[in-house]
């Protein structure tokens, strides 16, 4: 009978911690998912940006050695992601297919020149960098023209900027909500112990002695909660991978490691700080005010 009662009391105390931990881990899970979106948004925007490129139209009668040399020096540049040489014949075949007309027979010769398609690294895919690159390349006597769509480049950048701004604003909002929620949950769980805290003070315990177990518990709860939330994120990723495999780049393990580390640090930090603030508040409160 007594044992049963003790067990019941124990269970009640544990279950109150359980709810706190679950609330914290759900909030952290939400933050983690947002982090995933942000990480992959970068991925997606990079993907779009890296498909932006320009074409270098080479002068007529250029030697194969010169072409190879230009391509090689381009490949060595930091702004270049990849280069692709297009022979006039293959360019003509492509154009012919698009037009549906045999224009070489009609003209009697192939008017197209050799060209190199250059794909840029995401960091350089903006109008400023492109105009610098363009002017540098135009100085080369073997290059006739550098060709790219200015509008497309600025349009892509504008949209990416807009979307990242909203995403960031949304994350800031969510982070604030998360902190408020966790802070509130912890405050409530410590509020329920305010009389214990007062009693501890009355029997001569120092403030630091009273705080210690609460803080340790807070940090422990933070660790457990962030572990649970990482587990949830992994489950989420597993099902996402099954449904839409192309959306997430699973090769970037380090990035995910950093995300999980962030979740753990955030979980510990938020519950640590909230615990200290809440306990300190009740330590300083007069007995009479505890009843409100």
């Amino acid at each position, binding site marked *: 009978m007594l044992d049963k009662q003790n067990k019941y009391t124990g269970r009640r105390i544990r279950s109150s911690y359980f709810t706190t931990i679950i609330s914290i881990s759900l909030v952290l899970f939400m933050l983690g998912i947002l982090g995933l979106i942000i990480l992959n948004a970068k991925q997606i925007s990079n993907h779009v940006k890296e498909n932006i490129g320009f074409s270098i139209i080479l002068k007529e009668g250029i030697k194969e050695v010169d072409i190879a040399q230009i391509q090689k020096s381009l490949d060595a540049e930091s702004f270049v992601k990849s280069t692709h040489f297009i022979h006039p014949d293959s360019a003509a075949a492509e154009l012919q297919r698009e037009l549906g007309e045999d224009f070489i027979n009609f003209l009697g010769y192939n008017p197209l020149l050799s060209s190199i398609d250059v794909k840029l690294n995401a960091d350089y895919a903006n109008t400023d960098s492109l105009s610098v690159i363009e002017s540098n390349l135009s100085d080369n006597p073997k290059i006739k023209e550098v060709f790219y769509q200015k509008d497309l480049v600025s349009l892509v950048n504008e949209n990416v900027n807009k979307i990242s701004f909203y995403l960031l604003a949304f994350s800031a909002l969510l982070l604030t909500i998360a902190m408020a929620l966790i802070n509130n949950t912890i405050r409530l769980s410590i509020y329920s112990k305010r009389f214990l805290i007062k*009693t501890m*003070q*009355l*029997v*001569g315990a*120092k*403030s630091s002695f009273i705080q210690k177990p609460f803080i340790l518990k807070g940090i422990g709860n933070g660790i457990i909660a962030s572990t649970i939330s990482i587990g949830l994120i992994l489950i989420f990723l597993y099902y996402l991978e099954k449904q839409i495999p192309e959306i997430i780049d699973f090769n970037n393990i380090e990035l995910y490691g950093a995300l999980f580390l962030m979740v753990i640090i955030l979980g510990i930090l938020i519950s640590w700080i909230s615990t200290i603030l809440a306990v300190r508040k009740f330590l300083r409160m007069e007995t009479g005010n505890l009843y409100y």
Partner: protein
Amino acid sequence: MIVDISSATIYQRDNQVLQNVNLKIDSGEFVYLIGKTGSGKSSLLKTLYGELALKEGNATVVDFDLNTIKRNKIPFLRRKLGIVFQDFQLLTDRNVYDNLKFVLTATGWDDKSKMESRINEVLSSVGLTNKGYKFPHELSGGEQQRVVIARALLNEPDLILADEPTGNLDPETSEEILKLLVEISNRGKAILMATHDFHLMEKFPSRTLKCENGQVVDTPSPKRKNSGLQTEITEERRSGGENL
């Protein structure tokens, strides 16, 4: 001298409740503190254990100067005091043994076997041997109050402050608790006990202080069949009862 207060004014927040308080208590003295509810008994006790700051006058309690005591020194003052409350104030989330152990670890004990023997010592001195495993809610009011007294005794305090320790107990249990407190005072500890229980005071007469009209005055202890005092007592009890 355990308590030495001279021309002190006691405030509850910004309200002055007692003024020109002069009070001396020697070691081993048993002192009752009576007065209507709201007359300042609790405020006086709270001032003695550092819950309320002393703003005017001089006071030393167990060698601590209440005028100059800093916030972070108050725990050390309380370690020299035993405090007993009407509503017990036990740590409800742990059993009796751990309640007492908490006090010992909080006040700097670290030898496990010494702690255990001290806990058993105080528990047996209040007649609660073998009840250490019980949670506070599993004990009767009288037993809980004994635990509180045991807790107050842990660090061999020179002064025990009791704020209506029998206020929540039936007459028989109250008498047992009071016997226990008297016994403790006979062992050389000073006790200042706020109370409304005039039956007990009749049975165990001792020095009595009264809070009245914003003053603390020594007053004769109520005696049996003293009609004049008796009426005052019933009045007192009635007004106390209303406010419970």
